[in-house]
């Protein structure tokens, strides 16, 4: 599928489906080291996104990304609302008004998204947050784009790396977000935001592939 407005909107719809499918799992991860709402938070946000998309699909990838951003910001709340919101907002700014995205545009958008999350949340890799999924995803995306990969290939590379990144959060001790209050007791659990980030990228990759 082409990475144009319709393609990106399709990807976002698939993300919504994935989030809803894994809602309980994400909430359970958050019960372990957080406050048990992450799945619900994202489901509420992407549910609202679908409503907006049903009403009117913007005519550029950037427009779609911006719609996702503002909807998440105004419906999710919690830590993940502003962070995912910022990610989509920065991605939207990065792609500008391009009608279709190639591999390097996707990689650049992912990098902008990650940088936005870091700017807002001040988390570094290893702090056991969504940044630990986003950072390897950005690296893999950039490598794939430099190797000439198209949007689908770049997203697939990002998704694979994010999945690995999410799994790698399990032995980490959290230093940011609610899980940090647990100190050493945060060790041994996968970070919910890292896991949801991986699901999100996988859904986008599947839709594009």
């Amino acid at each position, binding site marked *: 599928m082409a990475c144009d407005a319709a393609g990106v909107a399709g990807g976002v719809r698939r993300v919504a489906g994935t989030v809803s499918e894994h809602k309980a799992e994400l909430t359970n991860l958050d019960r372990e080291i957080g406050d048990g709402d992450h799945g619900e938070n994202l489901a509420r946000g992407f549910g609202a996104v679908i409503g907006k998309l049903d009403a009117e699909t913007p005519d550029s990838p950037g427009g779609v990304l911006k719609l996702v951003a503002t909807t998440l910001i105004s419906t999710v709340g*919690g830590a993940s609302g502003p962070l995912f919101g910022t990610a989509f907002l920065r991605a939207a700014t990065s792609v500008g008004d391009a009608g279709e995205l190639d591999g390097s545009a996707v990689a650049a958008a992912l990098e902008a998204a990650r940088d936005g999350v870091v700017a807002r949340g001040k988390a570094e890799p290893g702090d056991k947050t969504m940044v630990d999924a986003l950072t390897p995803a950005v690296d893999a995306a950039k490598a794939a784009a430099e190797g000439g990969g198209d949007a689908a290939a770049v997203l697939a590379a990002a998704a694979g790396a994010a999945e690995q990144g999410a799994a790698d959060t399990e032995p980490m001790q959290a230093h940011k977000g609610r899980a940090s209050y647990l100190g050493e007791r945060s060790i041994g659990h996968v970070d919910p935001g890292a896991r949801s980030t991986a699901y999100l990228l996988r859904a986008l990759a599947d839709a594009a592939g």
Partner: protein
Amino acid sequence: MKKIINDPSTVVEEALHGMEVAHADLIKVNYSPAYIVRADAPVKGKVALVSGGGSGHEPLHGGFVGMGMLDAAAPGAVFTSPTPDQVLDATKAVDGGAGVLHIVKNYTGDVLNFETAAELAQAEDIQVEAVVVDDDVAVKDSTWTAGRRGVGGTVLLEKIVGAAAQRGDDLAACKALAEKVNGQVRSMGLALTACTVPHAGEPSFTLGDDEMEMGVGIHGEPGRERVTLTSADEMVSTMLGSVVEDLPFSSGDSTLLFVNGMGGTPLIELYLAYNSCVKFLKEKGIGVTRSLVGNYITSLEMQGMSITLLRLDDDMTTLWDAPVHTAALRWGA
């Protein structure tokens, strides 16, 4: 999960409806986005106080909206910080021209969402300042954590700064006072049982029959350590010991002692714990001149309590005693 609800996804909205009808003389409720304001908002020329946070901590914050305390509260989903548009619209609704103080509990989500709202409000030429409450001594305040959490001190701060705003203090004075209160208040919590977020359907954690979670957070975040259930006197000595040592409070201090239930603790146990606290403080020469005992900042149906100690000065005492008329705290009016 045993709750008096219809559907997990409408809990907050239905409860807001209930509050609105039960307290129609005090508050008005907006639903999209959700926020609660004083019935007489905006109060012209008065600094407005806006707080908010996840739902599930009732009466915090909506129960504290009214004369002499908050001008608005933005309730998020259960245990989820509100979104910026809730806070922004609440801020706009209560701005009386003298600026708005955001009272934010220190959680990543709350801080981020209030920050965004403040930026947006400032872009609309509303003067906004913020104070971040972080009084929970159970969490180590280091670069290795998101910092101390805002807990029981928030209630006392909202009352005292609310009274200052009511008497006409300006925004800078309100913010300075809020920071002063935050600097002189310390808290610690304890859970005997877990709570269940309606959407999650399962308890946030599990405790053995003889275990308690010392230092628990108000979202059921596990605390400092899981320990064996002890007597009330021992609980109090651990909790107040940490609280007193942290500030530190010293002999001769005059304090406000706040014994708070987590939502599922009966009042008889809170008064019993209050008695243990007074004994503990007396031994240390710390005086208790004001008190609050009850369920004011809760964690759904969690059994447990938190203890908050605030070092008072004359001005804070006067402001604490000043009339307040809200759903959950009311005197002199």
